[in-house]
């Protein structure tokens, strides 16, 4: 049976934005045809680039503004520059960037050490919170970790010992 608006009286504002004219809705609600001007619109002033900014090859140059955080550097930077030779539709672009991101983590650790800072990876991973709110889970994880390492070390020891024996003979 079809419900009536009264049936929704417990919901404050029910139907207040119901609009039979909500068609076509967002994202083409305010379509103006402006995009047919292409790039001929009056651009905002250009931000000067003081650090290296990579830009998608699907556009002619930089945008009016951009972020200047962490410019490309090191090996990850080389890979990022290479990534931007591919278009955004290309797997080479994104997979190269992910590879660069992973290498960047090691560069980050090296840079920390060079600056005399030993990263507290335990704290950075928020493990204090894990201990506080999920003690059981945290302990379980540590115990499993220790067990796996012990078993692996044991196996390794056994294997290397056997090798030594065969060498002896």
């Amino acid at each position, binding site marked *: 049976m079809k419900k009536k608006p009264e049936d929704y009286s417990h*919901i404050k*504002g029910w139907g207040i*934005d119901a609009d039979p004219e909500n068609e076509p809705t967002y994202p083409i609600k305010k379509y103006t045809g402006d995009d047919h001007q292409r790039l001929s619109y009056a651009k905002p002033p250009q931000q000067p680039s003081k650090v290296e900014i990579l830009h998608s090859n699907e556009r002619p140059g930089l945008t*009016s503004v951009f972020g200047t955080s962490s410019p490309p550097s090191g090996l990850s930077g080389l890979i990022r520059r290479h990534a931007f030779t591919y278009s955004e539709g290309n797997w080479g672009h*994104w997979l190269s960037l992910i590879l660069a991101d992973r290498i960047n*983590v090691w560069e980050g650790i090296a840079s920390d050490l060079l600056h005399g800072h030993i990263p507290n990876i335990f704290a950075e991973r*928020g493990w204090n919170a894990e201990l506080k709110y999920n003690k059981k889970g945290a302990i379980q994880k540590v115990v499993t970790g220790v067990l796996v390492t012990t078993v692996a070390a044991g196996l390794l020891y056994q294997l290397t010992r056997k090798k030594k024996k065969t060498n002896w003979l």
Partner: protein
Amino acid sequence: MIAMNFRGPFRVRADRNKPDPVIEHPEDAIVRVTRSCICGSDLHLYHGLVPDTRVGTTFGHEFTGEVVEVGSSIKNLKVGDHVLVPFNIACGVCPFCKQELYGNCHESNPEATAVGGIFGYSHTAGGFDGGQAEYVRVPFADVGPMVIPPDLDLDDAVLLTDVVPTGYQAAEMGGIKEGDTVVVFGAGPVGIMAAKCSWLFGAGRVIIIDQLEYRLEFAQRFAQCEAYNFRSLSDPVLFLKKTTDYFGADVCIDAVGCEAAGSTLQTITGRKTLLQAGSATALHWAINSVKKGGIVSIVGVYGPTGNLIPIGNVVNKGITIRANQASVKRLLPKLIEHIRAGRLNPKEIITHRVPLEEVSDAYHIFSRKLDNCIKTILIPPSARA
């Protein structure tokens, strides 16, 4: 200044010596942050799923703050204004901004053309440092930021920078007709707001799906909707078909995005091995449980490479898909009215207030959904005094 600093997947810390941001463009402003949230979108960065997330960058795209410096061309803001800053960086003059597609600005992100600039959201979204810091550079400060009306609570204001407009837009894009059955996948902050807003469009029935009992309980109360745990449904799509007389929902909303649980195949290919741009389980369910001719509205975030979804069913069922980043600025006046009238009460979703210095723990808690976490706000020391 103190700022969140990304060191690699699952590793973040609060650094005390990040240089303060400076004006780099005549339309910039510098803002001293008073509130800054952690978003489900930040988790995609935190988990290493977004390409070009560089070590050393600062996240944070949902923040309020006080203007401490303005560029030479700024007209609408002055030093001392307390503003809420939409997460989209938008120039206001390109053809996309002119059409209120503020999430698709053509002048704020050199690194990718698909999306406009977003604060603290990797170099794929423009390489801007974000608001999980004491200070932040805000480009195009005459366009996005809004002076917070004196009667608006600061906690509501900060949620207007993303979560509320995103949830509202999810419902709006669903083209809800009076009496429609709307299914929302995901009972995070975004899904909860989407469920709540669906009623404003005249939905007849609102159903929310998640796997976390504490969130479902909250959503049921807060959004006055039905809530189901997909872990206790052997087949969520079949369940939704049955509960709609074997028709399917009129509208399905994906408020989960690329870290969906619920399918081993999707999880392994999408989250563990990155063979696809995250796991598309919720979107898969949405497409399969909407009616023929129905609408799927996507606000969940996915990576740029591609995902396993049943596109054949989209064709055969004649489904309309609508999706975008939220266009925050265009929705603010209406949403502030809804808050004033008590139709929306966003700040109730805040469960955690954490000093910015404890950002590592805050991320971990939100990522692992510990301590019944729904929404976390980081507060810099200067805003606590």
